[in-house]
């Protein structure tokens, strides 16, 4: 049994999910080779416990992201029974391209992996779970935070390979991200305020948390009707938008039936309200009985801490 792990990087260094990939590979046993595209993070990768070898793949082609050039460069170095990567957008592309070049099947976004291989993945946006059997060799991408990370203390050999590959995709210019706020109808995370926020200017505290999470800010009808500054486009509920984000954070929203109609299908709901009897707690997965004034600064601090680690 041998596994090749394609390392994940972000902002020029190794992404912590790489340890989770190694952890998943270790659980299956055998040798583990980590490939670092562009050589990014190879020193850190060598220190992950269980890694047998690190291949630092270097070349000009890694200065621009061109999925085909990258997979063409990496493919010859990928060997073994199993190819693992993260299920980030970029890694999925590279993995499926490598799999196609090598003629092996690919299964994406796996949350559990056992010998054989038996892989579990959510399908239909998590409305069902699929278990598939895939023979080796194959390529599998793993969902972040679903596998125990391998520890540190390793000391693997680092082999540097220089590659050269033509780039067919040319980056002309970086575009400024649209300054507009995310709309509630397309956000994965929404933080909404109700009349309990006390006044429209206090929504700035919601925006602060939203910025940390990349979330959209929504509002209850009570807030929209009470304050002109809160536009109807932010309204979640019966006459507003019906939303189904992964996480809905309701702050100072009591949970009138009309509001619940617009957000109760969210995957997870966190409610923050000072009234322990508020109906919103009836639909919340996590409830915190506290005023927003107390809770939001602490929440923001904790999120910053967690996301930076």
């Amino acid at each position, binding site marked *: 049994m041998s596994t090749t792990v394609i390392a994940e990087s972000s902002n020029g260094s190794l992404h912590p999910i790489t340890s989770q990939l190694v952890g998943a590979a270790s659980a299956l046993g055998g040798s583990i080779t980590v490939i670092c595209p562009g050589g990014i993070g190879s020193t850190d990768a060598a220190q992950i416990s269980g890694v047998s070898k690190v291949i630092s793949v270097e070349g000009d082609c890694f200065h621009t*992201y061109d*999925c*085909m050039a990258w997979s063409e460069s990496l493919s010859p170095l990928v060997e073994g029974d199993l190819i693992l990567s993260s299920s980030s*957008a*970029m890694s*999925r*592309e590279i993995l*499926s*391209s490598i*799999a*196609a070049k090598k*003629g*092996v*099947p*690919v*299964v*994406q*976004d796996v949350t559990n992996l056992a010998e054989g291989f038996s892989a579990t993945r959510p*399908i*239909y*946006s*998590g*409305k*069902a*779970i*699929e*278990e*598939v*059997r*895939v*023979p080796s060799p*194959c390529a599998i991408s793993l969902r972040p*935070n*679903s596998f125990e990370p391998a520890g540190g203390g390793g000391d693997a050999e680092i082999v540097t390979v220089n590659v050269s590959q033509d780039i*067919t*995709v*040319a*980056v*002309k*210019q*970086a*575009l400024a*991200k649209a300054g507009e706020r995310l709309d509630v109808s*397309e956000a994965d995370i929404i933080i909404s305020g109700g009349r309990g926020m006390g006044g429209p200017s206090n929504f700035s505290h919601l925006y602060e948390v939203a910025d940390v999470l990349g979330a959209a800010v929504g509002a209850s009808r009570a807030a929209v009707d009470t304050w002109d500054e809160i536009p109807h486009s932010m309204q979640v509920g019966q006459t507003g938008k019906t939303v189904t984000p992964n*996480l809905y954070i309701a702050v100072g929203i009591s949970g009138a039936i009309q509001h619940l109609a617009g957000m109760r299908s969210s995957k*997870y709901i*966190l409610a923050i309200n000072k009234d*322990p009897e508020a109906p919103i707690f009836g*639909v*919340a*997965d*996590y*409830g*915190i*009985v506290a005023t927003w004034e107390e*809770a939001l600064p602490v*929440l923001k601090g*904790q*999120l910053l801490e*967690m996301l930076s680690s």
Partner: protein
Amino acid sequence: MGVAVLLKQVPDTTAKISVTDGRVDESSITKWSISPYDEYALENAIRLKELGYGDVVAITCGPARSSKCLVEAAAVGADKLIHVVTDSSSLDSIQIQALLSAAVKESSCDVVMCGKQAADTNSGSTGPGVASALGYSCVGAVTEVSIEGGVISATRLGPSGLEEVEVGVPCVFTFDKGDAELRRPNVRGIMMAKKKPIDSLTSDDLGVDTSNSAVSVESHSSPPEKPPGKKFVGIESVPEVVNMLRNDANVI
């Protein structure tokens, strides 16, 4: 010249999914639609055609019911329709990519567009896989394309943020949701679509062996029930809740 757009028919994103005897019960799904990201691919394919880049060839791979998405594509402007008739749910990624690549060759299109992932499996393997099989370039997570002097420029969400890239043909583009407003069909389009012939091809026609899928579905199951809600009093609980959001709910 020409744009092939790969469309996958999926249960409408609002459809209820139920599991019977270890399999998702497809017969209980009342509404099937073109996968949402594929709709952006279709819209951009039609825009490229309007800029003079040949015909739009809509291609789908799936059982008989999937021909509906070809008719829907024709109603908004697809010129040619190819249906690779197969029980796609039992095929592995190599087989599906081989079928689609063969159909693209059949269409002789040098630009291929599809969604960045399909709403049923959310895999995102098809675009880059087809590009590899055909030896085309590939640009992913695109929100907009335009063409000038034979060079296509695309806006994509790259590793370092939103950027404009240029790429020559042949190329595969996979689409994210963009600002482009999807065109609505109209009665005239629907009536013309009905008359448009669908080129039905089997795996034998395309010379692809679909007999042995490497990936076999062992079982489907409903997601585990969420535990009952937990309520905490006071802000001391915030670190614990944040921790649960990450490690139990996996949402941040």
